[in-house]
């Protein structure tokens, strides 16, 4: 699974996710990626989020909209909301994976509960970063 989130100069956020699913999948199995609100969500009132991981658990936790709702309704910061869902609710249920997210104010979050996640981001000073392992 791959995904991207972005904030443009007009204050709009967007999210995109694309995947081949899981190896050896059967019966037309679909994971979280194409389900709006689960693997992909974008709302200028809260955040844009793209997820990757064990789709069945991401669906049951409604991960992307869950995170956005915490920002919009509970006033959590984006990083707090991402960590609470990914390392809390999702992990407790047994779901492995991670999310990337940006907010309309420019906050960027990369949160995952696995030993690694292929990821890249631009920091607030304009620096570009890529990473693979959790400790990178």
């Amino acid at each position, binding site marked *: *699974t*791959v995904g*991207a*989130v*972005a*904030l*443009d*100069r*007009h204050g709009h956020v*967007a*999210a*995109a*996710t*694309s*995947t*081949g*699913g*899981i*190896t*050896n*999948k059967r019966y*037309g199995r*679909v994971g979280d*990626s*194409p*389900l*709006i609100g689960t*693997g*992909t969500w*974008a*709302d*200028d009132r809260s955040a*844009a989020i*793209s997820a*990757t991981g064990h789709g*069945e658990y991401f669906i049951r936790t409604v991960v992307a909209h869950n995170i956005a709702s915490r920002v919009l309704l509970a006033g959590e910061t984006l990083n707090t909301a991402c960590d609470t869902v990914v390392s809390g609710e999702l992990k407790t249920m047994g779901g*492995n*994976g*991670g999310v*990337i997210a*940006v907010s*309309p104010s*420019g906050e*960027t*979050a*990369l949160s*995952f509960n*696995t*030993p*690694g*996640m*292929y*990821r*890249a*981001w*631009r920091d607030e000073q304009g620096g*570009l970063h*890529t990473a*693979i*392992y959790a400790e990178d």
Partner: protein
Amino acid sequence: MANPIAIALHGGAGVLTPGLLTPEDETTIHEALLRALKAGLTLLEQDGSSLDAVQAAVVELEECPWFNAGKGAVFTHTGDHELDAAIMHGANREAGAVAGIHFVRNPILAARAVLEHSEHVLLAGAGADAFLATQDLEKVPNDWYDTDLRRRQWQTQLQAPDSVSLEPGGVDKKFG
């Protein structure tokens, strides 16, 4: 002061522990991630839309055989590929998504076509293929997505049906 811009991307999460990938593989992956990041960032720096930026970044990732999307997508049980994708704009919460499609080179462009050229949000399976056949998108045969790495993972998984490799080099227990 100009409004801030931001962009981030992922190429999949999994049991990625140091030593599973060779240093050359790691370098290739870092370069691919940076290329995709720059593809989206360039548009943002030119005052482009976040929707176009995320699309450009994901197209780059779909083109890279290392990632499970587009070229390099995993194999299904029957040895073909079923691709899923979604794209969403925060300004108006318009969204487009496809599930279980087979013949569009870049599935994220298929999702964008659903957003822009249909009154639906999610199209799936044969119906989605039929709609996409009417769209001006590059079509490919389903075996265009094949890569040797994913074929090996599929063969391994056929022999050991309770573990699957989601990411290059990584093996994770997944039950679909």
